[in-house]
């Protein structure tokens, strides 16, 4: 646990940090358990060997979100940073938060950004029709024909696209989901 509190991203916004002390300890033990060869960091293989993740249709995309920019190693602060997106929103008291500090990772906006990045394969800030198709294909496997998938992708992009550029930007994405209860769908509550 040396250096964990001091590492950037863990200290995070203000003194409270992205996750509570007790949860941090649990996540640290989990990190150590996943690091089978005791390397001190996680590789893609370590995450791929989690059974329930390997059968998840979006398993590869989720793993990608842990290894941005072609990184090959995931250290503990990075691990926590991604998981912090899923911290329940009501843990945070909005009244106390200092507006000058960066937004906490588990804010609604950041949760949406995480979901957006699952679609945005090339990270250009837009979900193109092609990217939508690819992610859809991951979710349905070989069960759906190309034509059916294309029509689903077309319909989805058209519904969300407002400026008519044929792609869904982050703002358009958030707008189409503004009525959605993100809190419940994208939060993992760690038991005390």
């Amino acid at each position, binding site marked *: 646990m040396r250096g964990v509190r001091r590492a950037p991203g863990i200290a995070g916004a203000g003194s409270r940090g992205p996750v509570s002390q*007790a949860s941090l300890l649990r996540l640290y033990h989990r990190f150590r358990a996943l690091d089978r060869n005791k390397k001190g960091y996680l590789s893609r293989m370590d995450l791929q060997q989690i059974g*329930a993740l390997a*059968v998840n249709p979006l398993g590869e995309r989720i793993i990608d979100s842990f290894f941005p920019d072609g990184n090959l190693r995931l250290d503990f602060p990075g691990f926590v940073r991604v998981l912090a997106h899923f911290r329940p929103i009501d843990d945070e008291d909005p009244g106390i938060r200092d507006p000058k500090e960066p937004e906490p990772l588990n804010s609604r906006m950041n949760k949406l950004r995480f*979901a957006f990045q699952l679609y945005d394969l090339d990270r250009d800030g837009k979900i193109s029709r092609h990217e939508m198709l690819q992610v859809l294909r991951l979710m349905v496997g070989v069960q759906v024909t190309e034509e059916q998938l294309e029509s*689903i992708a077309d319909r989805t992009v058209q519904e969300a696209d407002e400026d008519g550029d044929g792609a869904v930007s982050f703002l358009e*994405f958030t707008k189409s989901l503004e009525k959605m209860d993100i809190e419940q*769908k994208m939060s993992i509550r760690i038991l005390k």
Partner: protein
Amino acid sequence: MEGAELAGKILSTWLTLVICLILLPSAFGVSLGISEMYMKLLVKTLEWATIRIEKGVSKESVLKNSASVGIIQRDESPMEKGLSGLRGRDFELSDVFYFSKKGLEAIVEDEVTQRFSSEELVSWNLLTRTNVNFHYISLRLTMVWVLGVIVRYCVLLPLSLKNWLSELVHLTCCRICVRALSGTIHYHNKQYRPQKGGICVANHTSPIDVLILTTDGCYAMVGQVHGGLMGIIQRAMVKACPHVWFERSEMKDRHLVTKRLKEHIADKKKLPILIFPEGTCINNTSVMMFKKGSFEIGGTIHPVAIKYNPQFGDAFWNSSKYNMVSYLLRMMTSWAIVCDVWYMPPMTREEGEDAVQFANRVKSAIAVQGGLTELPWDGGLKRAKVKDTFKEEQQKNYSKMIVGNGSL
């Protein structure tokens, strides 16, 4: 000089005691009731110690203990509910939330990785815990073990005698070893003990499983050749009973394996084969997927359930963490090993049942009998990646939802 004499006297009296109390009864299969008394004493001591430990436990170990019991609040509703779906609703951008949440929940905690760390217990073995190594070595037990080893080698090696003699010796040695481990084993339903020409199938927790089963009867074993200490022991055992050993590479050739096993059981004079179909040691809280290979051979299967009492000692062997010798040492020096063995009525493959279904049926029977939970996961997950069939199932379910009723 006096000191040395005294030590000599003590040693010789102790030796005689050991021989009388352990070796002779073992040879005759008679129990002196000492083990039972020892067990009762042990239980009382452990209960007392548990209460003491629980009172004085520190915050950190509490955290570690509860960490294994499920740290996140899970919503186990099926995919349809999770996607807020009526059947046949269309794809939504938000569908990705469901999968990502499930994915991240798996990263924080998953069933399989938990199965492979030893079951974490609050009450303890009077020593240290939660995956920290032991330091206390009990001198008495080590000495008994050494004696057992000596006897085993001196008796096993000159073994070119008749079959009945070898069986007797085999049984004796096993009993000695079990006593060395301070083991107490309860056998249930002895009438179903595997007969010659059958296949015995059991769940697997540690190499001691073998010891426990062979104490009560002779088996031929199928396994891979180990190097080192195990190899020597294996070669010694081959002289006592005819076994079927394979190189690990040969094991990959399933047809070869099946052929040799078929030959073995066809010979009615040969001993029943002992197989552990899970393929690897599981930590004795659950039974994982049985590999179908053993069930394709045909013949009668005699299932056996083995369950260790976790209060007395952790028998699970995490092969990626400990090697054989350190594991054996741990076993020798733990206070006791208590386990139950249930023999079950024989099962054969039914009409129209394929090997996989048969394997699952046997697996369920063993799990129910031993009070273990059943997991569909492959024990090989410990080492290898999971098969894609499970992923396809999820994809199938999802596709049915968004395309299903042709609503596009």
